[in-house]
């Protein structure tokens, strides 16, 4: 089969034969699951960081187990594991509170949970590293001013920590975006999966996968611009 560029243009267009609309919807889904899992990861990371640094013995042990295991297991393997067991565990949990069958986990929620659970382990380490490198005197000053712990965290520790954590957080966003492609393996319809379906139906394998790669690259480069700007803003007065 010779590559026919005009046919390919029709295939990626928005006409009845085109995959343009599906691809754009896939890209939107990819961004949605990446952002949602990233936010979930941030929350888990903050909890994990707290558990590692100021939690009790049990909380510390649990957090250590969480970060060690999750970071040692391939993401794809974890996604398959969480995808197939997550739903049944959720159903069991719902059964315990007497809501069996009333609330079910959507594919979206399962995928976001799996991706966010993985990101949370890496976030924990980024936050912990940032927290450790904030100057000690600042915490003591906050304590001396008798600020309550949560306010101290919000006004003193967190802003300082954020500046140090930002490069790590930026990297993790890039990897959250890339990891989101893995959920295509369990059949979730995001950008890569749409591309896969389009490729196998039209037989334009190389072109469609290259196009999907270019779309991922575009999202990644655009978000890089934002991260750079944010980094400059948080670093003002420091360089």
């Amino acid at each position: 089969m010779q590559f026919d560029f005009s046919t390919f243009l029709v295939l990626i267009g928005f006409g009845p034969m085109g995959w343009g609309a599906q691809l754009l919807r896939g890209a939107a889904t990819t961004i949605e699951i990446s952002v949602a899992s990233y936010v979930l990861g941030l929350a888990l990371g903050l909890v994990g960081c707290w558990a590692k640094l100021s939690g009790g013995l049990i909380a510390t042990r649990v957090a250590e187990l969480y970060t060690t295991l999750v970071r040692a297991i391939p993401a794809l393997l974890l996604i398959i594991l969480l995808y197939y067991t997550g739903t049944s565990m959720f159903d069991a949990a719902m059964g315990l509170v007497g809501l069996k069958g009333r609330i079910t986990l959507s594919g979206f929620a399962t995928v976001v949970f799996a991706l966010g659970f993985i990101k949370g382990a890496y976030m924990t380490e980024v936050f912990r590293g940032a927290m450790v490198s904030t100057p000690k005197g600042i915490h003591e000053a906050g304590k001396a001013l008798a600020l309550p712990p949560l306010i101290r965290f919000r006004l003193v520790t967190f802003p300082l920590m954020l500046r140090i954590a930002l490069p790590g957080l930026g990297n993790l966003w890039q990897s959250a975006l890339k990891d989101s492609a893995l959920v295509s393996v369990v059949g979730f319809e995001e950008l890569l999966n749409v591309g896969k379906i389009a490729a196998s139906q039209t037989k334009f394998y190389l072109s469609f996968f290259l196009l999907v790669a270019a779309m991922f690259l575009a999202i990644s480069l655009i978000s890089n611009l934002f991260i750079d700007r944010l980094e400059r803003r948080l670093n003002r007065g420091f360089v």
Partner: protein
Amino acid sequence: MDFPFLVEMVPQLVDGFWTTLSLWLLSLSAGLVGAIFMAMMRMSSSGWLREPAKAFITVIRGTPLLIQVYILYYGFGNLFAQMPSIRYSVFWPVLREGYWYAWAALTISFAAYGGEILRGGIAGVPKGEIEAARSLGLRSWMTSLLIILPRALRISLPALGGQNIILLKSTVLASTITVMDLLGVANYIRMQTFRVYEPLLAVTAVFVILTWISAQIVTWLERRYSYGAR
């Protein structure tokens, strides 16, 4: 957990283990060589070498590895199948196997990420050491090979070790292109027997052990090559 069943699947998992291990080590060794070349191109004084390397690294690091695997296997694989000169050549037995496409994707990926790490390492080699080597009469290529490269490798060792673990974990992507690595075997067992936990958890355990071992090796290397107190 059904232990007789677990024992039953051991031979299959052992096959998958060797596939995973060889895929990992082969792409690590090729990827390291590629990383050295990438770093050299990236730091070259010629823009004709520097800019393509920069673009290559941006593209590889900005797109999911899974897509790169698909581009190589489905994209180029289909292209090759349509070319009679390749389809009926002696290379076809190699070019038919998903294994070698996965190997290529992993190697390229490690070269790109590792190249950036090494670049940082090369930049971190103290200037005085390079000048000392030159003043001892070492030629420029000897300085690169005997002084800069070993020092840069030592400086980047911790980061390369981390990248190596990422590489190990990425080998499971081979299972998406019909390779019977550990995850491929686990998925096969899962589909044949409808048991989810046993095969996947067994593979998980193997990966935890492999990660631990490779982290230990890197720690040992770091201590072995620490050149006195630093």
